[in-house]
């Protein structure tokens, strides 16, 4: 079996000031090419799982592994996040630059590419998602659905191996949702897809897990 891209072992996560844990001794593995759906009620810990998988929230206990090695140092976090992208549940958190193209080019620039290369990747990515016409728009003038697709573009522009998506089809109309579904279905990215949209999860993923009160169960 191929070694996991990213994994959690016995991971628990507690937010400051909260009594109970948001994640409770979770074991989770994402292998290359795998597409995992995550379902669960509101507050069951789905977003927390994604944040833990890229080391954005410190674990109270347990380990985070990237390609088999425990992630501890900041360079290791950097390498992990280069391979595993995250699209946030709230687009206003994801999009922080004043214009669309600057936001999409932000990641490639951080990877050390030149302005020209970064711009080319950003345009290309937006084009692939049928959003080329939004390139020069001011971010705050986008509609909710447009923000959602641009958020996806910002993560894709990093050319990751895996993508963690937190409810990526919220605010999307039927056509755009179908476009996203088709795109994710065809792509060879590993995916962790958090969604309340069961049809989407069924259509795209190879395996579904269910979360309840911070614990992970295989879907029945």
């Amino acid at each position, binding site marked *: 079996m191929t070694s996991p891209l990213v994994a959690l072992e016995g991971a628990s996560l507690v937010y400051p000031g909260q009594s109970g844990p948001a994640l409770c001794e979770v074991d989770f593995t994402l292998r290359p090419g795998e597409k995992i759906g995550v379902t669960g009620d509101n507050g069951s810990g789905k977003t927390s799982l994604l944040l833990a998988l890229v080391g954005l929230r410190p674990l109270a206990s347990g380990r985070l592994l990237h390609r088999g090695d425990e992630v501890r140092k900041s360079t290791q976090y950097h390498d992990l996040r280069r391979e595993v992208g995250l699209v946030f549940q709230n687009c206003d958190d994801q999009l922080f630059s004043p214009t669309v193209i600057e936001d999409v080019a932000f990641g490639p620039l951080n990877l050390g590419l030149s*302005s020209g290369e970064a711009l080319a990747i950003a345009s290309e990515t937006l084009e692939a998602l049928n959003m080329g016409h939004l390139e020069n728009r001011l971010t*705050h003038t986008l509609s909710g659905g447009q923000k959602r697709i641009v958020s996806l573009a910002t993560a894709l522009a990093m050319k990751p191996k895996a993508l963690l998506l937190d409810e990526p089809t919220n605010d999307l109309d039927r056509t755009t949702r179908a476009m996203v579904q088709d795109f994710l279905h065809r792509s060879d990215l590993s995916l962790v897809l958090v969604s309340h949209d069961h049809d989407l999860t069924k259509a795209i993923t190879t395996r579904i897990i269910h979360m309840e009160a911070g614990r992970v169960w295989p879907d029945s």
Partner: protein
Amino acid sequence: MNLPDGLADSRSGSPAGPFAGMDTRVKLLLTLGLLPLIISLQGVASLVLALVLAATLLVSARRPTRQILIRLAFANGFFVFLFVALSLTYPAKELGAWHFVSLDGLHLAGRIALKGNAMLLVLLALVASTPVPGLANALQRLRVPQKLILLLTYTYRQVFIIGEEMERMRQAAAARCFRPGLRLHVYRTFGYFLAQSLVRSLDRGQRIHDAMLMRGFAGCFHPLQRNDGVAPAEVAFGVLVFTLGLGLVALDRMVLN
């Protein structure tokens, strides 16, 4: 929202007016050149001429009239206050027909108002015709420190998010029949709005930092450079207007002596 300049332009599609398409560096440098010249003017006549020059710039910039008038009204509200304060308090050699009015005070307030308005008109014509992203790009190419520019651009984005959030809270309250008025309940609600928006901003700061980390941010910003050169005509225009400004200063000094 009326806050960040250049917004009206960017909302209504392609920017209007000859200055909108002009290289932002030329506009910024021209503004930086003109403002000290205006500040240095002393005589009323030259100040009036400066105001006329600035107004000409503004008219040819073809900015949305309503927006401009609102901004001018705001600024001149302050000057009205200045007129009242200085005419009553400034030590005078001469008193007006009404004995409590200081003519010197009025004179001084008049000069300040003329200067202020002329500077404001220049800013409205040259700087406010540039959308903030373009402004940031120009500042970057004028080698202004990265950190300051990023502060400007990210603040620009956040101002809208906070504004939208305030608006959503206001609508949520209005949908539940909240009406402003002079009641304790109303004050408390406004307090909550303010506190909530502060708490949410803090929270959002954390999440935006997360989003930046996710895209490889390691403490150092890499600007996007876009290369479009300055046309000779733009430089010539800048030099011409600046020379007019210098002429005004020379005139001012001659009249004074």
